């Protein structure tokens, strides 16, 4: 059985989210920050009459940009150029995630169970992996990701 997935890039890795319901893709824009929110919450955006919380997915997953090893570079300003915000919903709850770029929409088989090695990503947040053109795509479990803790 196949389902539709949106595939996106984040910190050099491919991730997928199953497409259920409406989806919007916006260029990165500033979110309204909320003091004392969870550290991975970028803020809120108002889009077409709905207020979406926007999550910094890279921070939530603990994947950061790959940096050269062997020398200490100046800490870089976080760049948002070219990033996108994907607006989705899970169980009727709307939310947004920040991704580096949207790769494609595609139909994929059901993900296989989570491999033992998810290279630095908490397997708790991964539903499974699929291969598409020999590339590994991690399908994320947003229900778990959105559940703080």
């Amino acid at each position, binding site marked *: 059985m196949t389902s539709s997935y949106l595939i996106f890039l984040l910190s050099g890795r491919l991730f997928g989210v199953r497409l259920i319901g409406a989806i919007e893709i916006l260029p990165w824009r500033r979110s*309204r*920050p*909320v*003091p*004392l*929110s*969870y550290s991975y*919450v970028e803020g*809120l*955006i*108002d889009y077409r009459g709905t*207020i*979406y*919380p926007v*999550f910094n997915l890279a921070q939530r997953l603990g994947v950061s940009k790959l940096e050269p090893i062997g020398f200490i570079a100046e800490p870089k300003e976080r760049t948002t150029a070219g990033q996108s915000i994907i607006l989705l919903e899970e169980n009727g*709850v*709307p*939310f947004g995630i920040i991704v580096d770029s949207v790769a494609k929409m595609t139909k994929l088989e059901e993900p296989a169970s989570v491999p033992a090695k998810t290279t630095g990503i908490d397997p708790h947040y991964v539903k499974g992996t699929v291969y598409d053109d020999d590339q590994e795509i991690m399908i994320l479990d947003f229900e778990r990701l*959105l*559940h*703080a803790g």
Partner: protein
Amino acid sequence: MDEGTRFLILSLGGETYALPITRLLEITVPRNIQKDAKLTELFEGKIEYRGALIPVLNIKKLFKLPGTPGSTLLVIKSGKGMLGLLVDAVTEILDSVQKPAPMPPGVVNPSYHYYSGVLRHKDNLVLLLNEDGLLS
């Protein structure tokens, strides 16, 4: 006018927040703040207001925002008595028929009660402060 349809719009660290105007007692300049060692570091001290000593909360410090304590003092009625709030500025009184949207889930720890909703105002999102939850 129905209660809860007028909001005081204030700024803190360059962002806008709102309070229900029904809770506002006074807008003034902070002066003669008396230090009180019994208060936590989130408070600047106490001021005398209508014969009572009321605590003055540095809301920027509570919200972990950089910068000096605000230069405008709001005296409000909270569920825990009168409270002084230091804010950067009061920008306007908003007459609004909109019902505040709830804070979306997954943003703040459910045990925090600092916000009672979100308002839309001039293409911005304004966080509605929960005057009863600021000291939670």
